[in-house]
């Protein structure tokens, strides 16, 4: 499972928009995955299976903490760390634009661009029809383009 830890961490980080929370979520997800390893019948399905667990753990985390939406002007250190990965203005702008996307738009974008999922797989992961996924992806890109033009 360690093979997928990079994907798990990045997915968790973009879901939670917080590096420290991402580490907690990945830890819990790995423990949970380990306990239910028996339910993984096909090794090829390991990545989507693990990402599903990450998604649930992230939801549990936010349910427990009752966290509200993030105010971009008032970030904690671990939230800000997500936006300050490396000194590259263009990348920083894009990262901030992604950060500010609604969860509904950001998640399918991460699954498609970063994880390489098809729109059908994203639909399964998020419990959406393929058409809804396509719409969200289109709107996500449109928002990012708009943000980057005005940045």
């Amino acid at each position, binding site marked *: *499972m360690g093979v997928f830890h990079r994907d798990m*961490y990045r997915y968790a980080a973009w879901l939670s928009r917080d590096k420290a929370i991402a580490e*907690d979520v990945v*830890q*819990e997800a790995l*423990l949970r995955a380990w306990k239910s390893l028996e339910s993984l019948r096909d090794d090829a399905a390991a990545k989507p299976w693990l990402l599903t667990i990450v998604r649930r753990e992230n939801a549990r985390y936010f349910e427990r903490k009752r966290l509200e939406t993030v105010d971009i002007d008032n970030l904690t250190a671990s939230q800000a760390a997500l936006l300050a990965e490396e000194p590259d203005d*263009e990348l920083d702008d894009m990262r901030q634009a992604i950060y500010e996307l609604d969860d509904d738009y950001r998640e399918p974008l991460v699954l498609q661009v970063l994880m390489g999922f098809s729109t059908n797989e994203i639909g399964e992961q998020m419990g959406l029809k393929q058409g809804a996924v396509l719409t969200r992806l289109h709107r996500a890109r449109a928002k990012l383009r708009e943000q*980057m033009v005005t940045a």
Partner: protein
Amino acid sequence: MSECSSCQAYRLEMKALDDQILRALSLNVPELNMPELPDIVTSNVVSLSARRRFSPPTWFAMAATVVVAALIGIRFVGVDHQTLADEVLAHLDHEPQALVVTDVEISDARFRSVVPASIASMDRRAGLITYAQSCEINGRDVPHLVIQGEHGPVTILLMPEEKIPNALPLEGDTVHGVILPVGSGSIAIIGVREERLDLIEERVLKSVTWST
């Protein structure tokens, strides 16, 4: 069919946008640090909840379990029935995922499928059974169970057709165990060194009756 120039420009723009998105999303990931693992001790294994809040990066906790299992390094100390003992020990290395600390009991259905009435009857009150798998030992399918002991997971192999004349002790750097003769078969019990296996042996022996 040639692409219109504006379509091509749009496609290239979207490709550039996706490349930029991918670079932005590709956050640096902390290394999966594997710590120097100590022997299995009580503080490491008795409580799942106690393991939940290590200092970051914390996800190595589970991977560490695998390594702990792989580093058990048990050896057979008897002189007879080397093959059976070797098979038992080799099997522990092959199935390290069984040795996880958990309080989640396997289902009755799972238990019955691994320990069918045709092999043995077993009282589940022998311990908290957290793993069950039918495994091949010495060419025969046998129930491989794990119960949670006081100090960590304890492996139980029910081998109704492996008759041995005497108990075969097993010793390792961090674990110990025994293969006990039981009627026409035998039962292997292996746990961490701190574990009082005699107490578990007594419960297991009382709980198991071969069907043949």
